């Protein structure tokens, strides 16, 4: 077997190579260790009933169906609010503003500052604005909109990078053909940027799914099945937090819920990935005449 180590004649290089291997294995181990614990501890709780029943006895028994529905509703509201805004910001930064102008500089600076704000601060902001001033109370809508504010900088940055990477060349060659800027944007730049947009979307979605602090203040604790987005709803991350800290004997279902969260993340990420591939193929028309 021809390995990198066997072709390194100097001890210094072998030492460096060994350091790289140990570092890489540590990264993999750090990633796999919690996953392994969650799978081993949580797999006992998983069953068809766990996904189809409501929680009972403060979550110690029963399932997590309303929790899953509330979580999906909160994430949907947050993405529905954040995605158009983030796209508009990305288009503004890449297509409209001068890259070194004061508008673009201020926008980028604001996004960087927003990205560094702790989630608990967003929670207090959401509680003040959406729950109280706008009268939404503890609801899925208030939680989703607050989450949208939190994921907006991440999503806008990812979309800006994707549109920038889609290439100045298409913008220039489109303009040289006398094509309008919106035509080039929608028909050329966006399809090329779709994989990057998809990566940003998955990043924002996973951040929203895993968020707890923001939702503690805004979407409430109710574990009943929500009837509308104005109802209070408990997200799965809050459910895990509650079972593990406030409910004696709730650890088994906390691990089960954590495993369900991991499965949900995987399913959603794969779905977005495949949807993007399909859209990319459809929009670029490589099989169309």
């Amino acid at each position, binding site marked *: 077997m021809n390995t990198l180590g066997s072709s390194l004649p100097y001890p210094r290089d072998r030492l460096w190579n060994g350091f790289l291997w140990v570092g890489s294995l540590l990264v993999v181990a750090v990633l796999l260790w919690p996953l392994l614990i969650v799978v081993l501890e949580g797999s006992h709780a998983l069953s068809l009933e766990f996904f189809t029943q409501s929680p009972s006895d403060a979550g110690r028994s029963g399932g997590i169906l309303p929790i899953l529905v509330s979580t999906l509703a909160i994430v949907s509201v947050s993405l529905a609010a954040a995605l158009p805004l983030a796209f508009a910001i990305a288009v503004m930064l890449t297509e409209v503003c*001068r*890259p*070194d*102008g004061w508008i673009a500089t201020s926008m980028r600076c604001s996004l960087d500052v927003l990205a560094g704000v702790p989630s608990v601060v967003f929670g207090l902001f959401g509680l003040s604005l959406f729950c109280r001033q706008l009268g939404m109370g503890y609801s899925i809508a208030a939680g989703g909109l607050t989450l949208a504010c939190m994921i907006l900088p991440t999503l806008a940055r990812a979309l800006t990078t994707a549109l920038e990477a889609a290439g100045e*060349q*298409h*913008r*220039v*060659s*489109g*303009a*040289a*053909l*006398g*094509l*309008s800027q919106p*035509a080039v944007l929608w*028909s*050329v730049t966006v*399809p*090329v940027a779709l994989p990057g947009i998809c990566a940003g979307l998955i990043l924002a979605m996973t951040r929203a799914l895993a968020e707890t602090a923001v939702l503690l203040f805004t979407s409430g604790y109710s574990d009943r099945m929500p009837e509308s987005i104005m109802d209070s709803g408990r997200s799965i991350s809050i459910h895990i937090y509650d079972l593990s800290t406030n409910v004696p004997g709730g650890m088994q279902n906390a691990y089960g819920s954590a495993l369900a969260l991991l499965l949900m993340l995987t399913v959603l990420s794969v779905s977005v990935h495949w949807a993007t591939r399909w859209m990319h193929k459809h929009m*670029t*028309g*490589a*099989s*169309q*005449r």
Partner: protein
Amino acid sequence: MTHSTLLATPPLVARPYAAAQSIADSRPSSGHIEFDDISVRYGNNKVVESVCLKVPRNSVTAMIGPSGCGKSSMLYTVNRLCDLIPGCCVTGSVEFSWLDNEQMRKDAILLRRQVGMLFQRPNPFPFSIWKNLEFALKQHGIRAKADVNERIESALQEVGLWDEVKDRLSASAFSLSGGQQQRLCLARALVLQPAVLLMDEPCSALDPISTQKIEDLILRLSRTRTILLVTHSLGQARRVASQVAMFWKLDGVGRLIECGSALDLFDQPRHDLTKSYLAYA
């Protein structure tokens, strides 16, 4: 300030139309282009100063000179791509003898339909071969199926690509070789039937065989279109151009130092800088 007073050495314009008019035909929708006192600056950085140049119709005018002397910037003033560059400021005017210049100044999209462009590197859109051409047509409101089909086939035939791709028109444009992609980009420009073609070092990324094909195309297309070519290959300029404009950076600014027929400029250069530049080649 006039063009001549700005130059350390006045440009030597030797019979600008002589060679070009011999190959000109009577195509009505074409004419000459005239750069009148063009200066280009990017922010505080002036890159071109007071260039006056006449580009004869239905001919190839090559712009040569070392890098950074403003040749590409000159091209960008013709189809107003310079408008897209932040901080770019152009003074002077570019006049088209056969177009409504006032309308062209108002409507960049209309202007760019008349003035096609080929870039240094092939830059097809991420579509199929067919859709690359169809997209440009549809965006310009040409949607009748028969017309679209005819124009696309005609453009692909004009660049000699039809026989190579007619059985795989739905394949991705990126499946073509670099030379084929460049000819596809040329077909994409031709499908809009422009009167002028701008070419910014179109062969610099191509192998000698593909370069030969592009040069043959340039010669053929110049019978019916006015072509403005930027090239670093003096051999290419000698082979395809009827008029050559020599640019040089003087006092940190690009200037036109000599312009004449290709024969005159290559065989009897009059400016000292032209002589030394040609001697390097």
